[in-house]
Each structure stands twice: as C-alpha cells, then as structure tokens.
C-alpha cells in the first residue's frame, strides 16, 4: 500500500508537479549515460573535431569492434566472471554461516566479536592494502584467482546484513527442527538457509557488482595480462593522453564494462527492494 496516495481521490496538482520533477530528475540521470553511449557510436576522428556530431549520422560500430579486437577481452571477461562469482559465493557462504552464528547461537565472546566485526565497516581499504599486498606476496597469492577473491571475503557488511536477516526468522523454526532431531548444521543448511534467499540475492548482487567494478586491488595484485580483470584490462588498453586519441573508443569501453553489471542488476532488481527492507528498518 502506498502511503502517499492513500485517501486521495484522484490526481492532485501536487501529484503532477512531483511527476514532472521526477521525470526531469530521471532525464538528468540518464542524460550522461546516453551521451556516453552516443559518443561510443561515433568515429574518433569525427569527435576530435566536434562532439556535437553525436546528434547526427553517421554512426559506427567500429569502436566496439576494436574493443573485441583486443584479443584478450574475452579472457578478462572470464577472469572477472570467475573472480566475481567466486567472491560472491564465498561471501554468501561465510556471511551466512557467521550471520547464523551471531544471530542464533551463544558462544563465548559472541557480542564483543560482533561489535568488532561492525567496527570493520569503518576500515578504509587504504589502511590495509599495503600490508595485505605484502602478506599476499609472502604467500605467493598475486596473479592468482584466490589472490583476487580473498580480500573481498572479509566483508563485514555481509555479516551484518545476514545477521539482521536471520534475526528476523522466527526462532520457533529452529526449535521445531531441534525437536525434529536435526543437528545445528542441518538446521542451518536445510531449514534456515533456504529462507534467506532474498537476502542472499541482495548481498550477492552487491558483492558481484562490487567485485566486478573493483579496480585498485586487481591493478596491483593481478599484474599479468592473462590475470587482468575486465576493469583493469580495459584500462590497460588506454593509450597515454587517451581521450583525444580515441574518445569514441574509450566510451565504447565504458559501455562494454558497464553492461554486464547493468544486466545483473536488472535481472535481480525485484529481489533487492524486498530484501533491503530486511535490515533497513531496524
């Protein structure tokens, strides 16, 4: 039920104004994206003279052809897929386990540990990146998939989200399962986990998007061309002083790098609002 519309019979003048404002704001939101997409379909040479040419023909797909022509793009795409999926899977597993533990089980130091994990939310990546790089060097983890995936697994946000979500599930379910002779793990695995799917979807999408878009860590950890992710890979294709040498090409890269994440979002869109509500209110 929509709060703002209840009790109001018919559309008022105020509603129209709001509608207009929303449409206007929406246009401002998409305009930059359209501008970029437009540029990506223009020849570099043409743009060098005048970007206004976006508004008229000819258009070209050469820029996209060039992106794909960089023979490594598919490999990078695959890397990103592996890293993002691996990180997503890992975060989901670890966060679910920990969320269940923090929400449902009693063990020594639970509450203080939970607070410590929450403090982790405030740690900027820069505060740990050097040390982490050195540790990974020690264990020869650079230029490996684990090297790219592991740092993302220490995500306090996921634990926070899952803990809140598990707290929402009626405790009677655990108890019913206990009386049904189920072990702790079995309760977690067979009874509760299936109920957290909306939260898993949300956390999964956020993790996936974050992993896909991450830049700094892949840049310094995956330093071999075959291990680049799509973000660092595409960046590596840029020439120095790139904008001028290939504005259209650059825009095509941007579109190409952004598309998968947009697709992931649109696909899971319906879960996100419902699940975000799980923790937003508390």
């Amino acid at each position: 039920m929509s709060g703002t519309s209840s009790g109001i019979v018919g559309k008022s003048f105020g509603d129209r104004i709001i509608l207009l404002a929303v449409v206007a704001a929406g246009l401002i939101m998409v305009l930059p994206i359209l501008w970029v997409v437009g540029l990506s379909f223009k020849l570099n040479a043409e743009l060098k003279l005048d970007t206004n040419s976006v508004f008229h023909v000819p258009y070209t797909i050469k820029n996209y052809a060039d992106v794909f022509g960089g023979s490594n793009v598919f490999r990078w795409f695959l890397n990103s897929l592996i890293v993002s999926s691996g990180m997503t899977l890992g975060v989901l597993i670890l966060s679910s386990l920990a969320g269940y533990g923090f929400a449902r089980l009693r063990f020594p130091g639970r509450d203080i540990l939970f607070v410590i994990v929450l403090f982790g939310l405030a740690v900027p990546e820069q505060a740990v990146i050097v040390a982490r790089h050195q540790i990974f060097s020690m264990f020869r983890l650079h230029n490996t998939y684990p090297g790219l995936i592991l740092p993302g697994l220490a995500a306090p946000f996921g634990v926070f989200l899952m803990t809140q979500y598990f707290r929402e599930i009626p405790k009677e379910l655990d108890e019913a399962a206990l009386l049904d002779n189920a072990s702790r793990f079995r309760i977690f695995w067979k009874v509760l986990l299936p109920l957290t799917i909306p939260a898993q979807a949300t956390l999964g999408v956020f993790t996936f998007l974050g992993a896909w878009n991450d830049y700094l860590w892949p840049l310094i950890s995956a330093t071999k061309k075959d291990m680049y992710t799509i973000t660092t890979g595409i960046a590596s294709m840029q020439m120095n002083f790139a904008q001028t040498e290939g504005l259209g090409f650059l825009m095509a890269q941007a579109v190409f790098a952004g598309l998968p994440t947009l697709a992931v979002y649109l696909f899971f869109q319906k879960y996100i609002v419902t699940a975000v509500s799980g923790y937003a209110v508390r």
Partner: protein
Amino acid sequence: MALIELINISKQYGAVQVIDNLSLTINSNEFMVFLGPSGCGKSTLLRMIAGLESIDGGEIRIDGKRIDHLPPGERGIAMVFQHYALYPHMSVRDNMAFGLRNIGIDEAEITRRVTEAAEILVLDTLLDRKPGQLSGGQRQRVAIGRAIVKEPQAFLFDEPLSNLDAALRVRTRVELAQLHNRVKSTMVFVTHDQIEAMTLAHRIVVMNNRRIEQVGTPMEIYARPATRFVAEFVGSPAMNFLPVKLDHDFVRLTDGTTVHTSVPIKELAPASDYTMGVRAEAISIGEAGTGDTDAVVEVVERLGDRTLVYARIADNSLLVAEAKGDSPLAAGAAVALTFDGRRTHLFDATGRGHHAAEAA
C-alpha cells in the same frame, strides 16, 4: 503413553524467577491443559519439558527416566507451536518427513507414517503444497501431522489454536479432542483461553504468577475454584464478586441485604473479610421486589441462545446474570436478583475459596 513428572522445577531469567519450585505429575494418556494469564510461565514450563529451555533446579522424568539433560530431539516428545513453525520452503510431505529423515528412518516407513497421518488429518490432497499455499487451519493440521508421524511419547501444544479465527478454532478444538481419543498419548496443552481448557482437558493446571493455583478436572475448576484467582479467571462472563460480612447462617452485603448460602459458614473465621462469588447462571432474574435484592438493568447483551444482563444493585456493584435467549429485558428495567445459595462461593482474605459441601 508416558507419565511425566516435574519435581521441584525452578527457572529464572536473569534475576526474574519465572517458575518457582513447581511440582506436577501428568498421567499417561492424560490430556493436561495449562491455563493462565499471559506471562504466568505456561510456555516456559512446556518448553522446559521439551528441552528448549534449560531448567535451573529440579528434575523432569518421563516414565521414571530422568530426561532433563537430554537434547530436545532425544526426549521422544513432539511439539506444536502457536505460529505453526512449519518449514516454509518444504512441501507438506517434507515438513512431516524431515524429523524422520533426521533419525534415519527408512523411506518406506516414512511414507507409511506420513500417509497415515495425512489420512487422520484429511491432508491427503495437500501433501505436495507448500505451507504458504495453505489456510491457517490447514497449516495447524500440518503442524499436528508433523508431530504425529514421530509417534512421540507425549505431545506438547503451545496455544496452537490462538491464531485461528473463531469458527475454525471451534472446529479444530473438536478435532483435537477426537485425535486424542484416537492416538492415545499424553498431551500437554497450553492456552489462556478457558473455553479451550474446559472443553479439551482431562485435568487443568491453572497457573498464575509462577505458581500453580489449582489442578483439577474442568468441572472441579469451574464449580469449586480453589482460589479467587481461579474463580475469576475461569468462566465467561466472569464470576461476580461482592464484598460480604458473615452473619450466622447467611452473608450480608455492604448495603445490608442478606443472602443465604450453602457454604458451611460456621467453619469460617467470622471476623475476617470475605468476598462472595456467584456466577451469572446462578443468579436468576425476577420481578422487582421478589428476590434477594433489587437491581436496575444497565446493559443487555443478547448472545442469541442466552442473554447477559448487567444490573446494578443497591450497594452499587454491577452484577451480570444470565437470562434466556429470548428474554424481553431491556436496559433501565427494574428487576430483582436471586442468588442460588448452593452455587455461591466465599473467598477469604487470602483468596482461598470455600464451597458448599460436595454433592454426593
């Protein structure tokens, strides 16, 4: 099939004593109901039997065997929760089978038991649905089915009907009574609805404030409440209470009216304060001037089969009396009330109840 003994049970949450040195025996095959107001510790007691709460003192035995240190799954007990606690993502069949699979019963046996339970509970056609696709009553039946298939020594119910609407509640109540006839098993049932307690129980445990007020059959509880609390809590409309003084063979209301009662007054201490209790159906309504005391009708509630008449008497108490369904009384009418002496009760200052000598 199981004799459950609670011996000197205590329980506290932090500093709050919730159950205090409570002892109780529940007989084999008995249908025992825990009745009491919200927060009196009914659920806690039940959950201690189930093993979902630890106990801080005392022992729990089933058929003589001490079980309070066993984990819940190993006590041979099934429980039905107020909010059903069905596994939402499993089909009805899987909900029932889950507990059996966990202890490794073979699939043929599981199928047999599930089918049988489904027949008893008329769930046959619903076995492949998810709980979300069931009505409240059907969900409750599934929850019961999940308990039945385990063939437990005892069933525990924690207000299983309170989430159903009125009509369904009545129907399920009858079904539960029939179920008990069929499966013959010890059942412990928690409720704060006295109609449920009255209609279902072999014996009722009335609890209040960490304590047991009375244990007895429904009619004992209704007709011979051990304490004023029990008298007030059980019965709808609630019993009328009037402060009285003892006067030889009869009692005297504050306005001087005398009322005859069969309670053996002589045995009571005459000096102390007493309260007389009388149920609505023990008050008859007649024409003004013809009864124990006159009264003016204030509210008339017509329930169809009977009518509740709220009338104010001289000492300013509002009493409720029961009249026939087609009683012509209306608010404002002047009437006389007559108390049925055999069905009056006296409660002393400590709340203890005194009743007419037991009928033969």
